[in-house]
């Protein structure tokens, strides 16, 4: 019916949308706008209220800081040339951390998938390492590797690696056995099973691990910076806390929020690029 009508009116109206459909599209659009508007309002109100309460001295801005002071702090840091340096150091450590965590984790998962023997031997160790609070390893890394970015990245790896191995290996194991059989019926070797089925089929799992690792890497980096560093956002937070400069702490936390969100969006974008293209 739809196509008939389209034909009838084609010379008059190029694209006929029924009134009901138009109404529906409009209501969806309105709903979307309303959600976005409310989201922004919450942010504006929260910051506005914070600023107001601090200005009226209802709360003590020395302890709570306030938006205008945060802007001032950002400006000062920027003038000193320190702001970008701190952001750069932290972001760099995080990116190295989650890329390394994902790549190493995937490689180890491949080894465990390959050899049933190694996998069985490794199992209790993985279980114990997985349940261990990795932060406890911090002092060990500092003593072994030295107080610097390398120890921070080691911290990050400690937090993300085991989770990645388990997640990716599990992804490998849930792949339909018949898909593997299909490759074998063509005379495929184990390596071909890996490259033709397991890895491409696990791409979504690996990307998912990457997403989880972005979050875990931030934890690792900030904890690492708390412990050892001389630069970075985690360092600024600890330093700010020690000298009771809450403006500095709040500023750093805020920048951290934005940087973490941007990085996560980056990975989501990468996911779209790699996967959606294939599966329409």
């Amino acid at each position: 019916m739809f196509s008939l009508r389209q034909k009838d009116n084609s010379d008059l109206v190029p694209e006929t949308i029924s009134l009901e459909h138009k109404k529906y599209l409009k209501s969806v659009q309105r709903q979307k706008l309303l959600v976005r508007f409310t989201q922004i309002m919450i942010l504006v109100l929260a910051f506005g209220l914070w600023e107001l309460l601090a200005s009226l001295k209802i709360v003590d801005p020395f302890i709570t800081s306030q938006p205008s002071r945060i802007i001032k702090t950002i400006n000062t840091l920027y003038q000193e040339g320190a702001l970008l340096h701190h952001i750069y150091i932290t972001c760099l450590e995080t990116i190295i951390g989650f890329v390394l965590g994902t790549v190493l984790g995937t490689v180890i998962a491949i080894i465990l998938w390959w050899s049933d023997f190694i996998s069985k031997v490794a199992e209790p160790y993985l279980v114990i390492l997985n349940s261990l609070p990795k932060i406890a390893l911090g002092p060990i890394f500092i003593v072994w590797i030295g107080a610097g970015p390398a120890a921070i990245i080691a911290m990050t790896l400690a937090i993300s690696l085991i989770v990645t191995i388990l997640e990716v290996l599990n992804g490998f194991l849930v792949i339909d056995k018949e898909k593997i059989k299909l490759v074998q019926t063509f005379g495929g070797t184990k390596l071909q099973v890996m490259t033709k089925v397991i890895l491409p089929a696990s791409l979504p799992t690996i990307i998912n691990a990457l997403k989880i690792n972005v979050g875990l890497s931030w934890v690792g980096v900030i904890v690492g910076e708390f412990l050892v560093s001389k630069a970075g956002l985690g360092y600024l937070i600890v330093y700010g806390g020690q000298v009771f400069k809450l403006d500095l702490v709040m500023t750093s936390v805020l920048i951290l929020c934005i940087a973490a969100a941007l990085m996560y969006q980056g990975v989501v974008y990468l996911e779209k690029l790699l996967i959606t293209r294939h599966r329409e």
Partner: protein
Amino acid sequence: MKVIVELQNIGMKYQSLNGEIPALENINLEVYEGEFVSIVGPSGCGKSTLLSIISGLLAPTSGNVLIEGEQVTGPSKKVGYMLQKDHLFDWRTIMQNVLLGLEIQKSVTPSAKQYAEHLLRTYGLIEFAHKYPSQLSGGMRQRAALIRTLVTNPQILLLDEAFSALDYQTRLAVNDDIYDIIKKEHKTAIMVTHDIAESISMSDRVIVLTRRPGTVKSVHEINFQLDNRTPLKSRKVPKFQNVFECIWKELDVHV
């Protein structure tokens, strides 16, 4: 007629911690070139195991499989396998899927690619060559899966419940479709199925296996004397029902 597949005293036992499970026992069978043979049997009688053994994926505990007189020791290029689901990889286009077997056998040549294109064109999938599997209907996907098997040019096709993932209407149509392709390409086919009607409608011979451990119980020659036989036409022959009931009784199904 020439014997192309020969099973000699095939026996298979599975080992487990709880003991030994005999799956197949003393199976002897000859399949002729160009023949369509179905294997039916009660569930768990080792039908699919038998196909895995013929394909060389599984070594029998006893007995030999000969293909054109040569003993089977592993997957052979002479044998193509069709699984229950199409298992087209959703990260590959139809063309890339169809070339999977050749890639694995490291024989992607221009002429092989041309043959793939020829098959896709002949069987109406050429305009989907660069589409992804999710854009195809169930029947088309099954056809693409068959072409993926045919591209490596096997002489023998093994169909392991190849249609059971499809809904009934699609299944009838795909039966005709695949049967037509197999006949046109002059392939020998061995099909395992639990669907008695499907086995009668497509085969020249139906082999009935016993309960586990499976062994050959009886062999039914299907000859309806039809011109241009198709599975659908076979289903309409009055004798069809007789054969069906005969096999049904032999399977001795109890619920």
